[in-house]
């Protein structure tokens, strides 16, 4: 047997070790070196405060009594963690965005930073947690008593005394490491690390006992399997109601328990931690639960294990003489109990100081007495006193109740109590319509039913006349009996309480939310919560700027955050606004930021009240909300305008690029044109020079002279024609040409053109097919210019048409205000790839020598047609070369 004194020494040594560890972690974090303190593994391990002494000892007892039902307590959290993407991620994001300090703060911040709600939640949490803390003290003293069974009476002492010592030690540790700083954003690194280490110890201890049981006391898994089948444990009967209710309760508890909220949301550093915990924490629970059943089965069958299944984890190794293992198991249980108490006390103390003490203090102060005291000191003392008070309450409960009830029952009562927060929390996260009145009504109804039908009955007979109430209902009203509400009997008391409290809670919450109208601050916060992912960084402002003096605010902030931190905050804000010094302009943004920062220290409701006081109660009104909404709409409109503008810019840029491309092309064309024209001019000039040289020489007979003179003359004519054409083209292109518009007849123009074109001698027979009836169209145009177009087209046809009998058909189709004239020959037409260039200058198709032109004809035609307000295009697929002229019936005079 382990000497009792050794046990006490080991305990003290272990606690001292945790002290040192926490101290080192705090120092490392303060130096900024504690990155590993924020690792997902430490986070996951810290979540294991879920597994209290109730798990460590109680799960085995639970399994011995109710078989596999114990597992529901771990399945609920597994489901919630596996679904982290749905709920936890949002919760953590909101926790960070709003600097939430506790579960009460969360609910209060959501419902318009209401102190009433925060107070209700805080009170309920304290009431629910007190027995739970008592349970931890009880388990430690029970464990002590197992070891001390054989110690002399003098050494063993009183169980209550042991519990007192444990409570005092825990209070000291919690106060030392839990209330060092005020801003909850500076996390409790020391505490978290100590808890992570304790998590490893308890897991290791339980697995060690499990391994000993499976392989030491049995022959391995196969035999355990057989023993479970044969054991009385297997006789348990699954109660579907309890199975569902317990799974639900455990899932709700992991969201609502103050200590779980503390480690999961408040101490969270980033979402990566959560992602890892989503599978690692269920794995932890899995490992914790793995050996529970074997230990229970073997313990029940072991003659030396004693009568209390809750202590099998200790008594089995002791009965087998494995004192080291027993010691380890004891430390595991000790770890489970202490870590729960520490975190629960921190979380509750934060809630009590922020939501009960500070609001009362703010109200009691004389109105004129503005922030005279050091708020920081008051908050810290309030927190320290709260920790001590909470542990004292826990001890008192233990001492008065005598610690008789089975561990599991007490834990479940606490679960049902905190589960009452669930409708308000989930509704607040996902439903913008949830209001403060709804939340308050739901909480009050749910908590009342919980107290009446589960909490009070758990005491046995706490009040005179209670036995009568239990049996016959208050004042003899049968349908109000605590465990048979509305006359429905036969339900398991726990399922009964869960069902009625949660369903009526939800009903009241939804009902009151539907019929009440939220205050502006509630609507603001509702939007911030529900749409936390959508509206990140563009939060609506809850304040009007300008009303408060920056100096007053600084004075207040200093008293809460401490001078150094407050000054840094103000200096940063001033620098961001572009002013120097410590006093930024008091804008709505700045007030919002300051409030968030203060909320991290004293909770959102108190921070809001303080700023409201400093700013002279200038909180936001409905009109302000609408103004903000309008502002947002304006910003959106503005950004849309910007978008449209940028689109337009893009369009313009595209057009500019296009224009540039054309200009470059034109420049290339111009160069080509110049070189072409030099060539065209040079050819006749060369022959003129050559022949005039010959003429200058003596000894030429007359016939030769005439011949040479004729050549010179012909070349000169060609040159002149070329120059005429060029001149014509350039005049047309420059737009300086004046059109002689007058009323005329199309057939007259065509007749003139045909006559002119036919005058030139041709080698082949040539026919022109006309439709005199259709040609009789009156139009206003420049007849000379239009005739020139027809002459060019007909001449071209005569030059290029390769049919043995040349035929040109001129078809006229008059429209209402436009006239279409097709000039079609019967040759082989123009090849497809040349069709695009024929209207360009100097463009000639096929054998150039035959043509004898400079390739300006069609270019001139195009220019003329454009000047006349019409167009010319090549018309493919007509059997030969075909051109379509489109003409307006009357050219606008301005053209």
């Amino acid at each position, binding site marked *: 047997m382990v000497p009792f004194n050794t046990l006490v020494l080991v305990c003290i040594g272990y606690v001292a070790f945790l002290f040192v560890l926490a101290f080192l972690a705090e120092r490392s974090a303060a130096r900024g070196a504690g990155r590993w303190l924020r690792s997902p593994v430490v986070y996951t391990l810290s979540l294991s405060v879920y597994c209290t002494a109730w798990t460590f000892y109680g799960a085995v007892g639970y399994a011995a009594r109710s078989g596999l039902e114990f597992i529901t307590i771990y399945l609920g959290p597994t*489901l919630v963690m596996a679904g982290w993407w749905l709920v936890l991620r949002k919760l953590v994001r909101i926790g960070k965005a709003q600097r939430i300090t506790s579960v009460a703060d969360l609910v209060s911040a959501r419902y318009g930073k209401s102190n009433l709600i925060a107070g209700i939640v805080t009170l309920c949490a304290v009431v629910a947690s007190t027995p739970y803390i008592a349970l931890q003290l009880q388990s430690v003293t029970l464990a002590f008593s197992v070891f001390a069974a054989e110690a002399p009476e003098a050494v063993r002492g009183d169980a209550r005394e042991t519990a007192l010592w444990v409570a005092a030690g825990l209070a000291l540790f919690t106060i030392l490491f839990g209330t060092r700083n005020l801003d909850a954003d500076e996390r409790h690194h020391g505490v978290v690390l100590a808890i992570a280490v304790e998590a490893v110890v308890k897991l290791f201890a339980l697995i060690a006992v499990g391994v000993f049981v499976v392989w030491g006391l049995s022959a391995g898994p196969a035999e355990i399997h057989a023993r479970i089948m044969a054991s009385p444990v297997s006789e348990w009967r699954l109660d579907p109601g309890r199975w*569902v209710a317990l799974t639900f309760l455990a899932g709700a508890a992991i969201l609502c328990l103050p200590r779980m909220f503390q480690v999961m949301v408040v101490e969270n550093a980033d979402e990566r931690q959560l*992602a*890892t915990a989503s599978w*690692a924490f*269920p794995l932890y629970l899995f490992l914790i639960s793995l050996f529970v059943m074997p230990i229970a089965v073997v313990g029940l069958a072991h003659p030396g294990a004693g009568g209390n299944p809750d202590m099998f984890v200790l008594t089995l190794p002791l009965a087998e003489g494995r004192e080291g293992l027993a010691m380890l198991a004891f430390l595991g249980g000790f770890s489970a109990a202490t870590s729960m108490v520490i975190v629960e006390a921190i979380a509750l103390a934060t809630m009590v100081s922020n939501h009960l003490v500070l609001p009362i203090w703010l109200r009691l102060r004389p109105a004129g007495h503005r922030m005279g005291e050091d708020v920081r000191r008051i908050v810290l003392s309030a927190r320290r006193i709260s920790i001590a008070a909470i542990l004292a309450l826990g001890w008192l409960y233990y001492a008065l109740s005598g610690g008789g009830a089975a561990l599991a029952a007490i834990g479940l009562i606490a679960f049902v109590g905190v589960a009452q927060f669930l409708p308000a929390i989930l509704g607040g996260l996902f439903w913008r319509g949830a209001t403060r009145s709804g939340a308050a009504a739901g909480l009050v109804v749910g908590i009342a039913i919980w107290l009446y039908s589960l909490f009070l009955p758990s005491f046995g007979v706490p009040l005179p006349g209670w036995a009568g109430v239990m049996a016959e209902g208050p004042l003899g009203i049968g349908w109000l009996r605590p465990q048979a509400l509305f006359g429905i009997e036969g339900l398991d008391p726990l399922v009964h309480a869960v069902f009625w409290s949660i369903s009526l809670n939800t009903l009241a919450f939804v009902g009151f939310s539907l019929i009440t109208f939220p205050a502006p601050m509630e609507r603001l916060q509702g939007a911030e919560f529900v749409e936390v992912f959508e509206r990140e960084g563009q939060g609506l402002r809850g304040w009007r700027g300008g009303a408060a003096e920056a100096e007053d605010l600084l004075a207040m902030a200093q008293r809460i955050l401490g001078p150094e931190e407050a000054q840094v905050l103000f200096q940063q804000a001033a620098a961001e606004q572009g002013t120097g010094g410590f006093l930024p302009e008091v804008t709505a943004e700045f007030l919002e930021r300051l409030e968030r920062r203060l909320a991290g220290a004293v909770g959102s409701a108190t921070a809001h009240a303080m700023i409201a006081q400093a700013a002279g109660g200038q909180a936001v009104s409905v009109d302000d909300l609408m103004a903000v909404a309008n502002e947002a709409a304006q910003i959106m409109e503005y950004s*849309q305008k910007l*978008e449209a503008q940028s689109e337009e810019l893009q369009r313009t840029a595209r057009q500019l690029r296009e224009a540039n491309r054309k200009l470059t092309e034109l420049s290339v064309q111009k160069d080509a044109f110049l070189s072409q024209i030099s060539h065209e001019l040079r050819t006749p000039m060369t022959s003129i020079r050559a022949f005039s040289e010959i003429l200058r020489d003596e000894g030429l007979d007359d016939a030769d002279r005439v011949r040479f003179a004729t050549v010179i003359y012909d070349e000169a004519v060609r040159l002149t024609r070329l120059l005429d054409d060029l001149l014509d083209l350039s005049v047309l292109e420059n737009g300086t040409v004046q059109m002689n518009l007058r009323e005329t007849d199309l057939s007259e123009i065509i007749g003139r053109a045909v006559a002119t074109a036919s005058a030139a001698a041709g080698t082949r027979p040539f026919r022109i097919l006309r439709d005199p009836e259709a040609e009789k169209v009156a139009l206003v145009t420049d007849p000379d210019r239009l005739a020139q177009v027809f002459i060019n087209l007909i001449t071209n046809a005569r030059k290029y048409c390769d049919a043995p009998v040349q035929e040109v058909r001129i078809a006229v189709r008059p429209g209402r205000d436009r006239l279409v004239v097709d000039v079609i020959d019967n040759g082989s037409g123009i090849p497809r790839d040349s069709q695009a260039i024929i209207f360009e200058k100097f463009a000639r198709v096929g054998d150039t020598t035959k043509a004898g032109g400079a390739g300006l004809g069609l270019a001139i035609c195009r220019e003329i047609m454009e000047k006349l307000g019409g167009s010319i295009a090549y018309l493919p697929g007509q059997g030969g070369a075909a051109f379509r002229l489109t003409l307006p019936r009357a050219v606008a005079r301005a053209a």
Partner: protein
Amino acid sequence: MTRARPPLFLERDDYRRRRIMDAARILPVLGAVLLLLPLLWEPQQTPAPDTAAGGLYLFAVWGLLILAAALLSRRLIERPAAPAPPTAGREGPGA
């Protein structure tokens, strides 16, 4: 007040990511269904107590849930810094 319409179809990566988010939302429901299956057991009516088999079933489902959560969470935080799609957190019309 009009809003810029989010794109109707997403690129392959974003599409995959959305479906993983869907899976992450479905996982707890699936887990709940599997873990509530014991409601249908009637241990009293089987010839021998089947607590051991039931326990094995529960632990197996549990293990699979852990595995699935681990795989999903790894994929979900692959691009934590990427700007969340405009409809993140809500079932958007994407894809």
